[in-house]
């Protein structure tokens, strides 16, 4: 059984590899993103030494790391699932002897691995050359970061699965998917670190799963969270991962019961 899922990861990885235009453009576009946010933040800082507890140098590193991490955890599983529900091909997926949601997660993982190796690593090298990014040299920190990155992927994927599955109930959930996409970018701390938000919003966001996607791992690698607190951050991620399994399980059960294949 496990070799089946490993193969799914491999196949998706190879499929991604086949489309070469994707990764040339990917590296360039991710670098432009890092660059644009670097200059935007530099302008926001102006003469100020530190804002929201971040110095300019920390902010630069935070921006670079967060965008590169996004390359790994990002996927379009919600759109894929919604499309399969809409065009009816989900019916075939359901009669196959595997777990549909696990299959989707594995495919997303293959895609993430592809982007990690083909976008993030070369993109990071490019960012190191172009911008004053300072990466830690402590191997332990990197290990913890990689582990946290894996949970970022899991939590983001869970949110995508949930959004995608809503297509079972509303038939066309384009608007919701768009909303989810922006919420993840904004509330996860990718666009603004959570500590910049006004106090009420910061408190609110601490109770939502989004911060576990970008803010926590990026804070650990930039050294904003250290020692025992870093492990607590990992703990928060694990708690969210476990908690999110419950609604997915519920929605999935409900969804299968009311599946209507439209056309075919």
């Amino acid at each position, binding site marked *: 059984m496990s070799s089946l899922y490993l193969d799914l990861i491999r196949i998706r990885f190879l499929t991604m590899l086949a*489309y*070469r*235009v*994707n990764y040339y*453009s*990917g590296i360039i*576009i*991710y670098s*432009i*993103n890092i*660059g*644009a946010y670097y*200059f*935007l933040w*530099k*302008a*926001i*800082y*102006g003469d*100020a030494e530190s*804002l*929201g507890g971040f110095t300019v140098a920390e902010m630069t590193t935070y921006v670079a790391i967060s965008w590169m991490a996004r390359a790994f955890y990002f996927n*379009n599983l919600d759109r894929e699932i919604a499309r399969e529900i809409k065009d009816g091909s989900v019916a075939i997926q359901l009669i196959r002897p595997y777990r549909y949601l696990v299959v989707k997660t594995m495919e997303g993982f293959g895609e993430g691995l592809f982007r990690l190796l083909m976008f993030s690593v070369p993109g990071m090298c490019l960012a190191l050359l172009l911008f004053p990014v300072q990466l830690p040299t402590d191997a332990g920190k990197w290990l913890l970061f990689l582990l946290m990155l894996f949970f970022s992927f899991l939590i983001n994927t869970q949110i995508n699965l949930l959004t995608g599955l809503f297509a079972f109930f*509303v*038939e*066309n*959930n*384009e*608007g*919701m998917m*768009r*909303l989810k996409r*922006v*919420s993840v970018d*904004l509330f996860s701390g990718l*666009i*603004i670190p959570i500590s*910049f*938000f*006004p106090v009420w*919003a910061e408190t609110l966001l601490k109770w939502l799963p989004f911060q576990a996607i970008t803010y926590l791992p990026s804070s650990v690698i930039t050294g904003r969270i250290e020692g025992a607190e870093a492990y607590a951050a990992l703990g928060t991620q694990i708690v969210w991962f476990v908690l999110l399994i419950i609604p997915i399980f519920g929605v999935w059960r409900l969804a299968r019961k009311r599946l209507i294949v439209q056309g075919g």
Partner: protein
Amino acid sequence: MYYASIIVDYLKTYMKTRMTYRADFWIEVVSDLAYQVMNLFFVLVVFQHTNLLAGWTREEIIFIYGYFMIPYGIFSCFFDLWDFADRYVIKGEMDRVLTRPVHNLVQLVLENADPPALFGSLTGFLIMVYAGWQLGLEPRWYDWLVLLVLVIGSAMIYGGIYIALTSVAFYSDSKTGIVPMMYNIQNYGRYPVDIYNKTIRFLLTWVIPFAFVGVYPAAYFLDKEITRIFALLTPLVGAIVLMLGVLIWNIGVKRYRGAGS
């Protein structure tokens, strides 16, 4: 005349399909607006930590944002063909489009038109008027005409860029790789270009001219010295970009070979 009746027919079909999923129609309108509000939220949060962004005040940035939303709404209504490669090229739906007498691009635009996106334009206009009022701007009578011309120019730039990007699908078999990634880049034209370094400024002005969709034309009304000339270039750049986009498209369509089964 022929095209006018086609457009009416498409609109009728559109209304019928949309009314099947009535709830979704409103979810989409609301989520579109929420999307814009969240982007605005970024500006508000940032200005809690600073008073000026490279010499621009909060209201000025919000004004630019409001302007940007108008062409953006028009773009999402007509040119947002994000899954074109997948649906039309890889799955071969383009066959159906090409066998009909109406120009293929016109058909695609009408088939995928999304009129609720125009609510975004309206909201943008209101945000712009509000920010302008806060800034104490006094529009002269012809400023409204200038606004119209600039918005048309900006929308043409948007259209041209995205038509060109969409036609990449004809040249490489790539799945929707580039179009979604461009969503972030278009946002950078909303901030004063003088904050970026030369490379990015050059990129946003001459290569993928998103600066003409936001900061340049909006600055015309703010009487910012530096960008006056650039603002008036907007319609010209728009015409050129749209022409290039359609040209790349037309050459691309000739390379389309169908998709087997």
